[in-house]
């Protein structure tokens, strides 16, 4: 490793990264000049519609902290799609991704059903604030569905360190018992973490076992399951609705509250006159424009000066990255809810709030 870097720096002016990667992939699929790639080395079904992929990353992938997320990119039917997942790092050379299939979800369907050992994924830099909390204080973890993934990383980390002697409570919501992940592992966790308590709450299970509960995450249920809320460091992860309910239920009662919410892309159409918010990531500006207008004239009317050429979808000069949000192609390309590398501003309009790389 220490030899590779200086040599790579020395010859880098002579190397075309795309050409290098093309030939390198013939020998080792995840070898790349500069891109952070990881090869799938194992695959396991861990719950209904839920798969864990074990990946071996190349040297460009930077290890993140337990509880953080990374952007994972894969080519699905010819299109590279990107989604955030919370990996579990067992070492710098090994990480595990647990993915639950979302109905109609292109990426999660591909990762759980089509992805095979030997496939290569791109792994972006780690981000997120749900890093290991202060071990001296009691922890309260709340997960719904695949929101368990960052929390299981934090629990594994704590179990390895044996650092935490304070109580740890995990409240884990799922629809049915078959949807619960890591159940065996969670059941044995108190062996290494004596203060660990698990409550599983099932919202659509026909008959509950004695240790299982039913119910929504409201203040009453939270107070009942966790009698001493004050002093707890609370972490919540799940769909936006779940995180909102938990936030409300715990407001003012816990020592601290952090959360990460995920929501499938909204496809709801907007009316033409309705204003939408556009975030310009580079300049940090936020503006409001009418949804019915093409983005280029709308941005210009708001005082922006994006590069442009033909203004009719021919020359690609105004194309810029779309980081988030749904847009409609005015030349018959349909609605695209995905982030894209090149969005032609002159022939696209927003179908909701969007974020552009401008």
């Amino acid at each position: 490793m220490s030899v590779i870097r200086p040599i790579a720096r020395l010859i880098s002016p002579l190397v075309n990264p795309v050409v290098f990667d093309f030939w390198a992939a013939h020998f080792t699929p995840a070898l790349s000049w500069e891109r952070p790639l990881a090869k799938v080395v194992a695959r396991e079904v861990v719950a209904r519609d839920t798969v864990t992929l074990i990946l071996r990353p190349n040297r460009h992938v930077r290890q993140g902290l337990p509880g953080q997320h990374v952007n994972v990119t894969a080519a699905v039917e010819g299109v590279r799609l990107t989604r955030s997942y919370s990996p579990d790092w067992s070492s710098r050379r090994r990480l595990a991704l647990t993915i639950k299939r979302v109905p109609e979800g292109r990426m999660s369907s591909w990762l759980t059903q089509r992805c095979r050992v030997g496939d290569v994924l791109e792994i972006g830099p780690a981000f997120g604030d749900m890093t290991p909390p202060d071990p001296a204080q009691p922890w309260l973890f709340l997960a719904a569905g695949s929101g368990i993934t960052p929390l299981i990383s934090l629990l594994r980390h704590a179990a390895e360190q044996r650092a935490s002697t304070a109580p740890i409570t995990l409240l884990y919501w799922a629809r049915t018992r078959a949807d619960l992940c890591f159940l065996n592992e969670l059941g044995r966790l108190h062996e290494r973490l004596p203060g660990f308590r698990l409550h599983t709450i099932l919202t659509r299970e026909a008959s509950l076992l004695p240790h299982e509960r039913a119910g929504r995450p409201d203040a009453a249920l939270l107070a009942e399951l966790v009698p001493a809320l004050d002093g707890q460091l609370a972490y919540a992860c799940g769909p936006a609705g779940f995180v909102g309910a938990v936030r409300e239920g715990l407001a003012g009662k816990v020592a601290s509250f952090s959360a990460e919410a995920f929501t499938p892309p909204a496809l709801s159409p907007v009316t033409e006159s309705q204003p939408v918010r556009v975030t310009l990531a580079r300049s940090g500006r936020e503006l409001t424009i009418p949804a019915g207008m093409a983005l280029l004239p709308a941005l210009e009317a708001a005082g922006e000066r994006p590069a442009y050429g033909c203004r009719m979808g021919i020359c690609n000069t105004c194309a810029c990255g779309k980081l988030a949000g749904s847009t409609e192609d005015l030349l018959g390309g349909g609605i695209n809810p995905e982030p894209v590398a090149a969005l032609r501003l002159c022939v696209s309009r927003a179908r909701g709030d969007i974020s552009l790389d401008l």
Partner: protein
Amino acid sequence: MSKSVARQALSAAEIEQFGAEIDALRERTLADIGEADARYIRRIHATVRYTELAGRGLLFFGIFPPAWVLGTLLLALSKILENMELGHNVMHGQYDWMNDPRFDGKTYEWDIVGTSDSWRKTHNFKHHTYTNVKGMDDDIGYGLLRLFPEQRWRPFFLGQPLYAVVFALLFQWGVAIQDLRLGAYFAGRISRDELGEQFRPIGRKMRRQLLKDYVFFPLVAGPFFLPVLLGNLVANGLRNLWTFMIIFCGHFTAKVAVFPKSVLKDESRGQWYLRQLLGSSNLRGGRVFHILSGNLSHQIEHHLFPDIPARRYAALSKEIQAICQRYGLHYNTGSLWVQFGQVVWRILRYALPSKPASLEGRSLVSD
């Protein structure tokens, strides 16, 4: 009454209907684009890499004439595929929907001395938006040749059969400096410093290309420096001749039209489509020929749909021909030899003075 440039004069309403049919065709094609197109461009990229490796590898044994000939042809083939079916089409953004940085139209850099950035400006924007509009589309004669009677004759053009041969042999250099404001510099409108500033990125790209083909690979060959250098020179030259031929056949055959700037005023999408059709010409040929031309043999479809993956043009051309037939519009196509013969005729004919033709009052609409 204005004179229509379409052989069959169409009313404004007819042109809009014609445009709507092309829009519908566009929509149908876009809905079908996906994995097969992604696989295709990845295979083209792989073919570029394999032929380059084979070509350069054989040239290392270029002391044996058969290896030199085959190596040079393979390297020329690789460069032709890279410039045309891969680079030109990728830079149009045809594969941007893949979100793959390798095929990103805004950042792709191709294997010729011209920079991709200047190409994206002169070609993607100027040439494709203002196709065959005199005074707007610099591709009409490239400021060097008189190809239409509507261009004013000057004694300079007497030498154009010679200039055309030199231009064809050095075509990549012509592409490289097309955006340089040399005319403005010689007319004293911009300073030497301004020109130098404009030249800097082009100079960097030229240096990189020259070092690669004429220093690095010959040096790697050691004692066989010269055969490798000559092989690279000939491969670049063959690519230049081929691209010149294909590109000139796209807009300078006998029946293509040029337009006055006035057509741009309030030009509708249907009129824009019609101008692309009347200003472009196709080449007939087999599948391999189409791929080697970067599918610019379907110049008409390329101009109607510059952002649709070029492998779709063959199927689109059948539908466009049917639409043209319904509207009584001429669909300009022919074999390479017939079409290129017409280009050569234009180069020879308009080197000599001709009765000046005026574009004044010409319009796309008959009423």
